[in-house]
């Protein structure tokens, strides 16, 4: 009976979110993927979702369901392959290739979504932040907000085209504020109350500068990571300039929502 069923034999992925040059043989009965958060396990499943949308004649549905810049994607068909007009593909590079057996007939599907100028980066949170490089408007917002701080001696690096995360590194000889694409909230998980999906650019920068940097300058860096992160968010909520009350609430919530803080203050449960 197995020979009469669809059997995917091998999966090859190039430039689909965090997966690049990824190849995996698929076993006839069961294949299990094990990996750390952000390793790409969910992305493998998303590939099949993408293929399903494509095969059902609704390739854009895959992007629309995730609010992934649908307006920038204009697919065209050529030589039985689907391609993205490079003019409209500023943020997407997809190339999925699957071989399969069906009733002993070897066939293959090739799906190409090819952008020419930028590729996707998935730097931070399993897909919730940092999925696409920053826009010019976002960079302008960053530049504008940074003018509120004294950052003497701090090297600011815009690294949204790398796998580096947004973060402030404090040293005796040098200090760096890396600003990656994860400085902006992600476009997955909207409506949830996670830091990933709700804390905005200003809030994230405030977390790094008012939180981590100013604590370091004051000699108040915490040895325990979770406590340092809680301190950074709460400090930012209290002292950061030009944040609206909603953003301060979000940062405060992020700070007190850290498990160690909840345990310490006995607010894990009512």
């Amino acid at each position, binding site marked *: 009976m197995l020979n009469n069923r669809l059997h995917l034999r091998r999966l090859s992925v190039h430039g689909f979110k965090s997966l690049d040059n990824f190849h995996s043989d698929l076993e006839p009965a069961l294949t299990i993927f094990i990996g750390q958060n952000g390793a790409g396990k969910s992305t493998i499943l998303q590939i099949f979702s993408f293929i399903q949308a494509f095969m059902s004649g609704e390739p854009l549905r895959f992007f629309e369901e995730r609010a992934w810049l649908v307006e920038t994607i204009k697919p065209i068909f050529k030589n039985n392959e689907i391609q993205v007009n490079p003019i409209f593909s500023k943020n997407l590079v997809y190339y999925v290739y699957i071989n399969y057996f069906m009733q002993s007939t070897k066939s293959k599907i090739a799906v190409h979504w090819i952008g020419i100028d930028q590729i996707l980066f998935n730097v*931070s949170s399993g897909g919730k932040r940092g999925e696409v490089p920053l826009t010019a408007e976002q960079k302008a917002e960053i530049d504008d907000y940074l003018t509120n701080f004294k950052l003497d001696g701090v090297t600011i690096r815009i*690294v949204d085209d790398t*796998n*580096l*995360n947004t973060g402030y590194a404090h040293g005796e000889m040098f200090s760096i504020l*890396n600003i990656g694409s994860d400085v902006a909230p992600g476009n997955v998980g909207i409506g949830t109350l996670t830091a990933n999906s709700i*804390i905005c650019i200003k809030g994230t920068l405030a977390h790094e500068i008012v939180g*981590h940097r100013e604590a370091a300058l004051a000699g108040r860096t915490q040895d325990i990571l979770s406590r340092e992160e809680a301190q950074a968010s709460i400090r930012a909520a209290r002292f950061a300039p030009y944040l609206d009350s909603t953003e301060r609430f979000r940062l405060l919530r992020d700070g007190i929502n850290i498990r160690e803080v909840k345990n310490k203050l006995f607010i894990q449960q009512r």
Partner: protein
Amino acid sequence: MKAVMKIEDSFLIKKTGLIVSGVNSQVDALSKNEVKAEIGTKVRIVLPSGEEVDANVREIAISDSLVGKKNISIALDEINGVTEIERGSLLYSI
């Protein structure tokens, strides 16, 4: 020799020297001091071409992001006038 990170960014700071930055998800859960201890005082950089460069570590600075990811930045002693390390190079502790 232990792999530390793939270099994502590098630049020169006057008086400080060459800075290389990268990420390694396997150290995200470690403390900064534990990461520094893993790196040590001397590193080897393997360029995409296969060429190897050794350098002494001057200082290590590590950041934590809002979602729990670390960046590792390392200030290196001067390497024969090198002002930038090619992205994608691999850095090892030796």
